[in-house]
């Protein structure tokens, strides 16, 4: 897919008709749009999203979603039927050209702004016609689920690389690479209208016992779904709370009085997080050791008794046996001794040979005693080894626990210092931070508990299913209904496992792409990798034997990691057709990337790094940046981008309003050009100007 042109008509502060063409040449694929904060970058990003997806596409930070029509137009005296907000997007996809127009008349906005009108013209082989299902067509070209990966605000994108975003990463892979079909199918199979229906049929034809089991199973499954929804909500709340904490932290870091202590606290919190993770890992290792070899610790008396028995038997010359009982029995049976004497019944000679049976041994006993002796030795060795390892793990656990206590105490001291001594603003921020942290801990606790409850419920549900399966369905109808319920459940499980396998098989391919992109920007011996459980790890080589250790990621690194991940997905999506899959006919698709402020508050090094890869992130890249982000830090971004010779189109937004944000400059300076970008005016409006 390639974007050609965007036309806005009375969309938000874009009064009248405003238009921009996107860079579309392969070697000149970057469109830069300069705009100060508050001038309309977010509105422009949302114009594209609204065009494609309507009201539901608008980003969460886009205020006043119900007022799409320009306010001046809405308030003007022109006839109401002529007051219309419109976004027109021209693009091409798989050789076809499209003209999308989404409009919202004033009267419709007043009635229900969520219902806009969409038309989609398609030009194919020189013929132009209207698509009859435009929404469906748009969603087949850019599925709604991948939009947040293609159109995004760069400042918040670092969240993807955070530990807790593994689910989001897995979801992104599935959406971008066309696997959501499997997910939807499994969900549909488990839907009340499908599985529930067959269960009802089974209940109606089954015995009272099975009917009761089915009823319990349904209740349990409903409970699991409810718990999952509650966990999802807790995860969302956790994410937004963490964003709020980050904002408070950023304010504290910018406060001259608090920044030193805040910096120290952030380091301590990072160290604590690492220690908590290590403690978890050591505890898991210890649990595994106890589960596998823990029994050996209780074998001391058993081994001692075993050894005593073996020693006694040896001392009594019972083992190894000098004469085998099989040999004696053979002599008695043949009635003749090896000295040729006869051994008749009742004779003294026979009694003497028979007496030997009391001391003769068995070969099997010989072997068994040898094996026991050996096993006792190994058991002793294992016990010693286990004892040492348990001791080692416990020492590490105690050390980590002590470290965590020290971190907690020092963090608490910093909290006291910040809250007590450094002025009203810092105190308020500290108060807010403490409340947010309490809230975050509550959410984390809730997530853990709910996860445990879900696992317990799932185990109970599995047991119930086994019971139902084992119960005899006597009637023919019941048997058929049971087979259908089983088929639905088994097929849903099969699809789950296919989805897991397909997603997992993409990880090595993605990692290849991630490495390629990452190596372009990071010159240190760092390696970025997506782990099998969908978390990003950055490792660094230490020493010469290839050993690698995890590197704690800063916000800048996380932002780069997230961008690299999206770029890798975009490039893998392009090659989708070549990837072996269980799903037939997944075609490759090239997507553009539209980024609002991807440079955020980053340091010079990371800005340079991002600027260097921007042209290569996707076949077409559209970039919104303020003067500070683009030209700041001694041209970290501008030099890289200008030197890349990849900028194909360039625009700036002029802002007309009574005032503007204090950090925005009135002029945009590009080389020798000075462009007026702010104009004082009574009414707010933004215009798009080409440079």
């Amino acid at each position, binding site marked *: 897919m390639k974007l050609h042109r965007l036309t806005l008509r009375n969309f938000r502060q874009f009064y009248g008709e405003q238009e921009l063409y996107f860079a579309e040449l392969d070697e000149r694929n970057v469109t830069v749009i300069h705009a100060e904060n508050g001038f309309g970058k977010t509105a422009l990003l949302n114009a594209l999203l609204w065009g494609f997806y309507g009201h539901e596409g608008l980003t969460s930070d886009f205020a006043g979603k119900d007022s799409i029509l320009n306010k001046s137009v809405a308030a003007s005296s022109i006839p109401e039927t002529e007051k219309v907000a419109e976004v027109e997007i021209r693009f091409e996809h798989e050789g076809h050209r499209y003209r999308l127009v989404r409009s919202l008349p004033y009267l419709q906005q007043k009635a229900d702004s969520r219902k806009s009108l969409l038309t989609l013209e398609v030009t194919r082989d020189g013929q132009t016609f209207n698509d009859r299902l435009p*929404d*469906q*067509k748009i*969603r*087949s070209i850019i*599925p709604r689920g991948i939009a947040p990966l293609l159109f995004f605000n760069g400042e918040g994108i670092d969240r993807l690389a955070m530990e807790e975003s593994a689910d989001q990463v897995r979801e992104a892979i599935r959406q971008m690479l066309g696997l*959501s*079909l*499997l997910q*939807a*199918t499994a969900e*549909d*199979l488990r*839907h009340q*209208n*499908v599985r529930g*229906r*067959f269960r009802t049929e089974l209940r109606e034809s089954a015995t009272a016992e099975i009917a009761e089991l089915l009823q319990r199973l349904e209740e349990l499954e409903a409970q699991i779904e409810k718990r999952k929804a509650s966990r999802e909500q807790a995860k969302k709340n956790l994410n937004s709370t963490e964003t709020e904490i980050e904002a408070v932290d950023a304010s504290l870091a910018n406060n001259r009085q608090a920044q030193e202590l805040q910096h120290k606290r952030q380091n301590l919190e990072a160290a604590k997080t690492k220690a908590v993770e290590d403690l978890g890992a050591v505890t898991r290792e210890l649990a595994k050791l106890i589960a596998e070899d823990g029994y050996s610790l209780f074998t001391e008396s058993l081994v001692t008794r075993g050894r005593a028995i073996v020693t006694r038997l040896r001392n009594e010359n019972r083992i190894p046996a000098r004469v085998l009982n099989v040999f004696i029995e053979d002599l008695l049976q043949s009635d003749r001794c090896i000295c040729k004497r006869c051994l008749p019944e009742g004779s003294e000679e026979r009694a003497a040979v028979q007496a030997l049976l009391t001391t003769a041994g068995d070969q099997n006993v010989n072997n068994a005693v040898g094996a026991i002796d050996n096993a006792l030795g190994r058991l002793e060795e294992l016990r010693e080894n286990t004892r040492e390892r348990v001791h080692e793990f416990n020492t590490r656990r105690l050390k980590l626990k002590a470290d965590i206590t020290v971190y907690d105490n020092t963090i608490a001291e910093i909290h006291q210092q910040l809250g007590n001594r450094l002025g009203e603003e810092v105190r308020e921020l500290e108060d807010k931070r403490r409340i947010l942290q309490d809230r975050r801990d509550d959410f984390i606790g809730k997530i853990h508990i709910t996860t445990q409850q879900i696992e317990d419920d799932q185990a109970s549900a599995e047991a119930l299913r086994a019971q139902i399966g084992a119960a005899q369905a006597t009637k023919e109808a019941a048997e*058929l209904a049971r*087979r*259908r319920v089983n*088929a*639905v459940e*088994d*097929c849903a499980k*099969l*699809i789950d*496992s*296919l989805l897991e*396998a*397909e997603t*997992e*098989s993409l990880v090595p391919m993605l990692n290849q792409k991630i490495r390629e992109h990452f190596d372009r920007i990071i010159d240190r011996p760092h390696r970025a990798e997506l782990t099998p459980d969908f978390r990003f790890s950055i490792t660094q080589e230490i020493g010469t034997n290839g050993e690698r250790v995890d590197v704690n990621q800063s916000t800048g690194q996380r932002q780069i990691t997230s961008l690299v991940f999206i770029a890798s997905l975009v490039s893998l999506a392009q090659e989708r057709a070549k990837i*072996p*899959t*269980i*799903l*037939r006919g997944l075609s490759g698709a090239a997507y553009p990337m539209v980024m609002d402020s991807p440079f955020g508050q980053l340091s010079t090094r990371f800005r340079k790094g991002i600027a260097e890869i921007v042209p290569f992130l996707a076949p077409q890249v559209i970039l919104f940046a303020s003067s500070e982000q683009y030209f700041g830090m001694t041209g970290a971004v501008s030099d890289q981008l200008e030197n890349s010779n990849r900028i194909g189109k360039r625009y700036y937004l002029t802002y007309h309003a009574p005032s503007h944000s204090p950090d925005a400059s009135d002029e945009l300076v590009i080389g020798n050009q000075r462009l007026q970008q702010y104009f004082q005016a009574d009414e707010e409006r933004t215009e798009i100007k080409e440079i």
Partner: protein
Amino acid sequence: MSDPEPDTKNYTRSQQLFLAAPEEYQKLVRDILKEEREVMHLLRRPDIHQKIVHLVRRHIA
């Protein structure tokens, strides 16, 4: 779904999983996916559950 091929050693893990399932289920899943593909981009998909029920009845008879 991919058609089975005689040489299974080059199959991906998901293909192997699929082929290890009973043939009855393979056919059912193929047909359900075909229906799902038709409606995957629709905002509302009112008939899909009915279609799946119908397919289950047809295959498991």
